[in-house]
């Protein structure tokens, strides 16, 4: 496989060393911070922070290039369509109006609209590096063990770990099956009409399901032979107790969250920060 999609890589960076639980909590806190604000200053800071995290984690950009490309295209569409469908929304929420250019009819571009759309795009942009960092640096079993320790049932946690464990296997099967079927003339490329393509992909499901069932059967036996399900509890080989850095990371995220919220509650006193007041 020339591209390894979504595979957890093992490096020794500051971020890799954090416990899976810490990373999950930090991830959630940062997402909330971003969701709860429309303040360009906070968003710029969050974007910078997310990029720094991404750099620290040393995830090779090649690994995410493809997904990142798709995201950019999506964001561009979102930007343009939001303007087309509600060109005055920025004015509406900010309460001021500074025109830049008129396309005719209701399509008047304002600084407010531009500002609003940039904030929205930036919100998405912040989330992705943070998401990448979480997915690519977290050891799934270690993460599962953390979940178990905060009270999620062992069964669910084992299932989470196993899913991650089998994802590469199933995707390898899929590649093999799809290539073998292409050789027989089942075309999955863009040359084929959409309806036909969907039908062709469906044809792959049978062999994929059957070979996956074989795997399930084998693994179920292997697991019960090694005592899986003996008791409701289990211990975890890859469990790591929270360490100083974990608490530090959590503290940093919480501080950021609190500052951002305080700015909203006490400084701007609104969801939207309007830099255009007094222009």
């Amino acid at each position, binding site marked *: 496989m*020339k591209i390894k999609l979504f595979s957890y890589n093992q490096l020794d960076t500051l971020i890799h060393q954090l416990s899976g639980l810490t990373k999950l909590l930090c991830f959630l806190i940062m997402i909330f911070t971003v969701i709860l604000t429309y303040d360009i200053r906070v968003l710029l800071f969050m974007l910078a922070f997310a990029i720094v995290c991404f750099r620290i984690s040393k995830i090779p950009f090649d690994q995410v290039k493809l997904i990142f490309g798709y995201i950019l295209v999506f964001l561009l569409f979102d930007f343009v369509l939001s303007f087309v469908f509600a060109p005055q929304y920025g004015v509406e929420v900010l309460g001021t109006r500074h025109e830049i250019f008129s396309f005719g009819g209701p399509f008047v571009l304002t600084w407010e609209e531009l500002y609003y759309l940039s904030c929205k795009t930036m919100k998405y942009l912040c989330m992705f590096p943070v998401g990448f960092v979480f997915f690519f640096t977290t*050891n799934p*079993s270690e993460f599962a063990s953390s979940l178990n320790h905060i009270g999620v049932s062992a069964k669910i946690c084992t299932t989470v770990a196993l899913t991650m464990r089998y994802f590469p296997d199933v995707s390898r099967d899929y590649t093999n099956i799809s*290539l*073998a079927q292409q*050789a027989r003339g089942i075309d999955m490329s863009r040359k084929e009409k959409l309806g036909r393509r969907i039908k062709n992909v469906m044809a792959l499901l*049978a*062999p994929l399901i059957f070979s996956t069932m074989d795997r399930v059967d084998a693994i179920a036996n292997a697991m019960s*032979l090694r*005592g899986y399900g003996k008791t409701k509890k289990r211990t975890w080989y890859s469990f790591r107790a929270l360490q100083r850095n974990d608490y530090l990371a959590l503290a940093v995220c919480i501080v950021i969250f609190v500052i951002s919220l305080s700015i909203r509650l006490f400084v701007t006193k609104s969801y939207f920060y309007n830099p255009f007041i007094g222009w």
Partner: protein
Amino acid sequence: MEMTNTTINKRAVIEFNDFSFQYDSQKRPTLHDVNLTIYEGEKILIIGPSGSGKSTLGNCLNGLIPFAYPGKIGGSVKLYGHDLTSLNIFKCSQYVGTVLQDADSQFVGLSVGEDIAFELENDNVPLETMHHKVREVAGIVDMASFLQRSPFELSGGQKQRACLAGAMVADAPVLLFDEPLANLDPSTGKSAIELIDTIAKQRNKTVIIIEHRLEDVLHRHVDRILLINHGTILADMTPDELLCSDLLEQNGIREPLYVAAMRYADVDLSQTKHLSDDTHYDLNGQQHLVKSWYQANRSVVQPIEKEAVLTINDLCFSYDGIHPILDHVDLTIHQGEMMAIVGKNGAGKSTLSKCIVGFEKIDGGTIFYKDLCINDWTIKERANAIGYVLQNPNQMICKTMIYDEVALGLLSRGYDKDTIETKVYDTLKICGLYEYRNWPICALSYGQKKRVTIASILVLEPSVLILDEPTAGQDYRHYSEIMEFLTTLNDRGITIILITHDMHLMLEYTDRCVVITDGKIIADTAGSVVLSDPRLIEKAYLKRTSLYDLAQKCDINDPVAFIDTFIRHEHKESPL
């Protein structure tokens, strides 16, 4: 007799008394009239053809029967004196540690350490004890430096050692191996047998091996062999006794090649000594019989010049752009050849065939089909000339009915209904599947499914057929069936390329053997030459054939010619 005396004093760990078992889904019992006692510290080999009941017997030992596969039990089984039905699967696993057939399918953990620890995790062993124990067991199987690695980065042999560690970690006194040699290259298989032997001795384990590759298991001493067929134990004897008898042949088990050769030469096997020991057996003065048989049957085949059908020039390929998988490979394949590509796991054999059929995009070089450069051909275009059959038929079959499955490739190529029907029926006839044409595929055996997948490729009338491990996991009878079928295709003029670990297959059915190691072709010659060359054998992780040793013992100065003579003789004698 000495042996019986010593075993009597030992403790019986497993006892079957008039045991029978019938799966809930079956009409007749899979096992019946089984009487068997296994003593502490014994090393037992269970052999039998596919469907004989040997795996079922194994499952009765580790508790998968009756706890995972319910059914009706008659008579009794006792594990360390406890009746099986009074235990549960977890209690059974405290006595019997199991290493399942396919290493890849039984990894639970994302790292070797985590996988080894799985049983301890389920036992709620505290973290510190667990890490200590895992390091200790990993040390025993020589995997201590791999604890952090993902199981999928390991070689075949390392994977198996990791599985063994996982089965040993909870200190079960009995170790059960279900077909430990499947999927291993010959040299790794040999090391696996040696490792099992060492651990059994050092740790004082009782070992039970289920396998049909008899010659490979006998590389190390076993105390007793149980021959199973038709659901019951047909023989319970020492390896020497069993090899002297006719039971193996009668029950479709392949005897070691050197024993088969001795039979051809009319050696009186009962007069030999240590017959089952592949290095120390002694013909006891009958060497001249083998030598005179060789001289009487010796014949030389003349190679025939053929046209090239595939020409590969300077082929390069790598997955990551750094580590070459194929490193400037040159290879010419001739029309009508039946050839083998061999080499250790990960040497680049499968990658080479994927490059040929277009599944992988090559980094450099050219591939010619006859005199056309096919570098720019799509997968579909190449499939008209070169067919590729995957190892696992379940990964290829996507229709429920045989006719539809075979017709699929033609439909997508736009043939009309009548042409399709004619072509499909013709292909089904060639493949011996015509009478099953209206059957659902799920009603077929593994070997028949394999034929369906071959038929579905063959219907496109390729002139070259590449098969990845066509006989993996098959017993001798099914193996012969598949190989004889491929030979008939070859006789029709189809060029056949086999990718395989099976040295018997390579030796017996191909006239040419290409050896790949680290992405380079290091030999391209007859199989008998490859398996007599110590330098090649070591470099490519192969195993010397026992016929070579026999030739030496009998003072035959051209072992390669001896091996060729044996193979030709065997083809004449072949029951199929």
